[in-house]
Structures are given as C-alpha cells and as structure tokens.
C-alpha cells in the first residue's frame, strides 16, 4: 500500500479542570504572574459585562444579545496574543478580544441596542465590526491577509468562527485561499458544541474540527479552549508563523456555550441540564483562578475587590449607553454612499418632511 500523505492533529492543554498543570513546559508568558493576573481580571470583567448585558436585555433596555459565557479563555487568549496592527474579524460574541483591542463596553451595548454607532468603535479602525451572516467574516480576514502580504506588512488577520460556522462555504473558502497563497491568517474555531440547537456532531462527520484545516494544507491544531494558557500559546505560535511568512493556521478551541444561544433563545428546549452542569465543571475562570491561587497570586479578597471595580466600571458604561440619544433619521441616508446620489437626496428630503409632519 502506497501512502500519499499522512497527518496528525495535536491536542494542546496546559491546565486541567482543577487548575493543575498537565505539562511541565509552561510557556514563557505564563511565568509572568502579573500578566496572568491581568488576563484573569479581564476574563472576570468580561463575565460581569455579560451578566449585566443579559440583565439589560431582560429589562427591555437592550435588544437581542449574544452571551459569551464560557468563552472567556478563548477570547482573552486571542486578544492578548494579537498586536494592535493585526486585524480581527469577529462573529458576534468576541467582546473579550475586542475589549483588549480597545472596543468599549458601551459600544457593544450600543450595537445590540439597535444603533449603528456601536460598530464605529474605539478599537483599531482596521478591525471588522460584528458579522451576523455566519462565516462571512472569514473571507474578510483572508482578504485582509492578502492585502498585508501584497503590501509586505508584518501583520496577521485573525478570525473567529463557531463550530456551526465551519460548515459554511465562506469558512472553507477562507482557509483554502489562505493555504493556496500562504496568507498570514489565523482561523480560530470556537467550538462551543452548539449552533443554536444543532449539536456539533450534526454539523460534520469529521472527528475534529481542526482537521478541516488539512483540506487547505494549513497547520491545524486542537486546544483546550477553557485553558487560557493553551489558547494563548497556540495563538502566539500561529501568529508568529503567519507574521514571518510561514502561512496560516487553524486552531480549534474546545469550549462550551454555557448560556442560551442569544437572549432570544431558550436552550432548555433542546439540551440537557446535565450536560450544562458538567460543562460548568470545565469552565475557564475557575481553573485559572485556582491555578493563580495555588501560585499564591490571587485570593478571595482580591477577587471580591476586583468584582466591585468591574461593577463600577460597568455602571459607567451602562449609563453612557443609556444616555446615548438615538441618531437623527438623516443617519439612515448619510452613510449609504460616500456622497448621496441624486435619488437619495430626494428621498432624504421626503423622509425628513414625513417625519416632521408626524410630530
């Protein structure tokens, strides 16, 4: 029997669910405990943000909101590894990555509060806004990566995609072109086991989602997505390769969507409480906290103090959000094109007239 090609998909983990190291070769960055505390604090802030956002939605002060509960290690791992000049192309719940990149919580709220200005955010101007049509952001990352390559800029484009999203044409197109052209692109599959009510195994017969990268000839790896150290290490490696012209990677981060799909969803309709309960055992904050505590770098008191600070910051953000006036109707017209075409000038005038007639 002749073998034309053979492949292995590695699984990377540094911390187990009890916060104990599973391997001795901790990466450099993880030895800097101050840094690790910072990352943990960001994860905790993210969770406070998430809880508060859901509360806002429940009280009618926010539209549909997509929670990121349980995904904190993935998003903070990505965000802390990226450079500002890199490009991030998210789907719709990667607030953690975005906070690190400068997006403000009030901007996230504005977006889910039905106001386009949320996407004119304080993060890097070259970062893409949230993307609703599943998977389409993957190709924006690929296009960005192609631009960097052509302009010989040492920048990397990173996208996130859900387990469900890996079924989508755009995901495949993006990894394929990245492989064909050796683009500086990192694809992070956030495998949270569910796409609304559709479980991971209904999406594909592939044993791992990471192996989808093999179809494109990309370096492909699976990581424990609840282990911040693993995610960050994998990202560091992938970003470095990409930045040095060695091509793209696919990282499958295995995590769990502890929340409903969005506030418009009720996950109890389709999944067992037992599964969710079990997933809470693996959640990302507790294990990092335990690890930090074991290292003597964190304790209950610091935890509580930080939570209070998070709460205060969130109050400010929420107030800023709630205090933001609705845009004038003109805004509906004025960003459709760089310059208003003649038809739109007329329609804009008519719309404003109709509006003032109705007052």
């Amino acid at each position, binding site marked *: 029997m002749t073998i034309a090609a053979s492949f292995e998909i590695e699984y990377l983990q540094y911390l187990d669910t009890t916060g104990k190291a599973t391997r001795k070769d901790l990466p450099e960055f993880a030895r800097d405990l101050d840094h690790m505390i910072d990352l943990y604090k960001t994860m905790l802030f993210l969770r406070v943000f998430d809880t508060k956002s859901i509360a806002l939605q429940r009280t009618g002060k926010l*539209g549909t909101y997509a929670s990121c509960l349980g995904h904190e290690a993935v998003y903070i791992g990505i965000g802390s590894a990226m450079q500002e000049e890199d490009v991030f192309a998210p789907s719709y719940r990667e607030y953690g990555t975005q906070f690190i990149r400068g997006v403000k919580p009030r901007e996230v709220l504005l977006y889910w509060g039905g106001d386009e200005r949320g996407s004119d955010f304080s993060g890097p101007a070259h970062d893409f806004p949230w993307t609703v049509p599943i998977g389409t952001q993957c190709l924006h990352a690929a296009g960005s990566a192609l631009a960097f390559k052509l302009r010989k800029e040492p920048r990397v484009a990173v996208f996130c995609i859900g387990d469900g999203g890996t079924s989508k044409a755009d995901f495949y197109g993006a990894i394929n072109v990245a492989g064909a052209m050796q683009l500086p692109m990192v694809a992070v599959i956030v495998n949270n086991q569910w796409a609304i009510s559709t479980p991971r195994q209904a999406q594909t017969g592939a044993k791992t989602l990471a192996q989808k990268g093999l179809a494109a000839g990309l370096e492909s790896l699976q990581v424990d997505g609840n282990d911040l150290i693993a995610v960050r290490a994998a990202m560091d490696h992938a970003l470095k390769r990409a930045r040095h012209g060695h091509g793209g990677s696919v990282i499958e981060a295995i995590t769990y969507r502890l929340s409903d799909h969005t506030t418009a969803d009720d996950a109890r309709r389709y999944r067992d409480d037992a599964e969710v309960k079990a997933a809470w055992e693996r959640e990302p904050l507790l294990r990092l906290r335990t690890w930090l505590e074991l290292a003597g770098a964190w304790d209950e008191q610091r935890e509580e103090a930080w939570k209070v600070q998070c709460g205060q910051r969130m109050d400010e953000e929420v107030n800023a959000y709630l205090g933001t006036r609705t845009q004038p109707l003109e805004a509906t017209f004025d960003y459709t094109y760089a310059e208003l075409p003649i038809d739109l000038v007329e*329609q804009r005038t008519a719309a404003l007239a109709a509006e003032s007639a109705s007052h």
Partner: protein
Amino acid sequence: MAQITLIEAVTMALAYEMDHDASVIVLGEDVGINGGVFRATVGLLEKFGPERVIDMPLDETTIAGVTVGMAAQGMKPVAESQFEGFMYPMLDQIASHAARLRNRTRGRMHVPAVFRAPWGGGIRAPEHHSEANEAIFTNIPGLRVVLPSSPGRAYGLLLAAIRDPDPVIFFEPKRIYRQYKEEVPDDGEALPLDMCFVLRDGSDVTLVTWGAQVKETLEAADALADSGISAEVIDVATLKPLDFDTIHESVRKTGRCVIVHEAPRTAGFGAEIAARLAEHAMYDLLAPVQRVTGYDTHIPLFRLEMKYLPSVQRIVAAAQQTLAVS
C-alpha cells in the same frame, strides 16, 4: 375550528401536507427539536420523526443544493432559511438550478421545492434579520414568489406552494406572525398561486401592497374612510406570476393607485406594478401612480427602523395626493 396566528397557519399547513404526502419533508437549520427559530416547525419532529424533519449543517448553499437534489429525485422538500437576509447564499442554486432544471431538461426533471423564509422588518431584530429582498427573486424565470399576509392565506398558499410542481419562494411576514388570530379550517384547501386578493372594496383609490404592510395599508384605508375617501385594498400575495388583471380592474374603477412595500424603492417589485400600469392603464389613471416604500438605503438597526418602514401616515398622504389631482 381554532383561531390561529399566521405562523400557526404555516405550521398547520406543513403538518397537513406532511400527513397527506409522504414525499414532503422539512429541512433547515434548527427546524427539528427547536421547532425553528420562530417556531414555525414546532411539533413536526415529534409527529413525523427525524427522517421528515431534518436539521441541516449550517450552510444555506448546502441547504438549497440538497433541496434541489432531493426534489429532482421525487421528494417535495420545504427548505427553511432562518431569515430572508440569509438567502443570498441560496441564490445560485435557486436561480441556476431550481428555476431551470425543468427547462434545461425539457421537462425530464423538475424541482417541486419550497424555499420558506421569515421576511421583513419591524421586530427589533439585529442586522440582516429585517430585509425585504423579494424583488430579487421576481426577475428570475421559473420561480414563483409568494408572500401571504393573513393566517388563512398563509395556510392556503403554503399548501399550494408545496403542491406546485415548480419551485416557490415563500416569504412569511414575520412582523405579523403573531399579530392576530383568525379561524382557519384545517381542510387542506389550497389557494391559487396566481391571484391577488381584494381585501377591501373602494371606489376612489386603489392601494396595492403585500406582506406585513397590508396592516398599515388597511389602517390607512380606515383613516381615509374617516375623511370620506373610499380606498380599495389589494393584497398582491403572489408577486410572480403577477395577477395584474385584478389590479387593473380596480384601477379602472378608481383611477388612482398607490403601491406600498417595505423593500427599497428602486427596482422594488412596486416598479413592476407601476410599469404595468404605465403600459396598460394610462387611460384609466386620473393621477400619477405613487409608491410608498422603504428608502434606497439599508433598513436601519432597530432604533430607527420604524421610521424606515412605510407608515399609515405616509400611505394616507400619498393617497390624498393622488386625489388632489383631478
């Protein structure tokens, strides 16, 4: 006989036809145990099992292409797109294959499929959940495009769509999914797929519309009646093929026509109706045709969306304008 909402009528029609025709199957994202994101397919999995109600991988191109393949092999798939804004990746399979296979093979193969999608704005949803992109489909030969606006018409037209041997795009106005209930007998009676419905008789002006806008249009007719103007209201219901005769007959009587739709104006389907009036009803018209539509912009996120959608007031104003001419 139960009082049901529009979305319940959709479910009832699906269940009826699945019960009576084993080749009918439902497929899409989250249509199974979750019963669809709007709950249009709720209960079907329990009743018909996972071989008739199929949760698909998350790819609309796949859903559309698989639908074409199954239909060509004699099944009658009813495919759901979770929102009309996610139908674009289906378009190639719909336009290049569903709509063409009969013609391409001189009738040897055909595609008896339905592509369902919740349609339109006004539910305070995120971006891409509020499109009205029906016009795109109306220029494609080989398709039918249907847009019911009441529980009864949703039931009858969906049955007809499933039974039709050719592909039907079936848009469901999600803003009025649960707006009101009406009695709809579950009698399996289909409605014709080439007919406009006159919802209200009138003599002064014809208001032509479809989908959720039927609500505002009927309200506008009420408001006009208050000021002594008698408006006829037509629900187009099936855009393609268009029953222009019913519209023409009405305009012959009223001499005035206002077309109302929430899609962007330019090249919206209202243009086709206005064009036919220009071609065939010039001598009947006492005033220029008016279009009250969404603007040629993207529908804004929800804080402003109601200012984008045609309002009762805009419809009334347009009708009055047609009457100001004499």
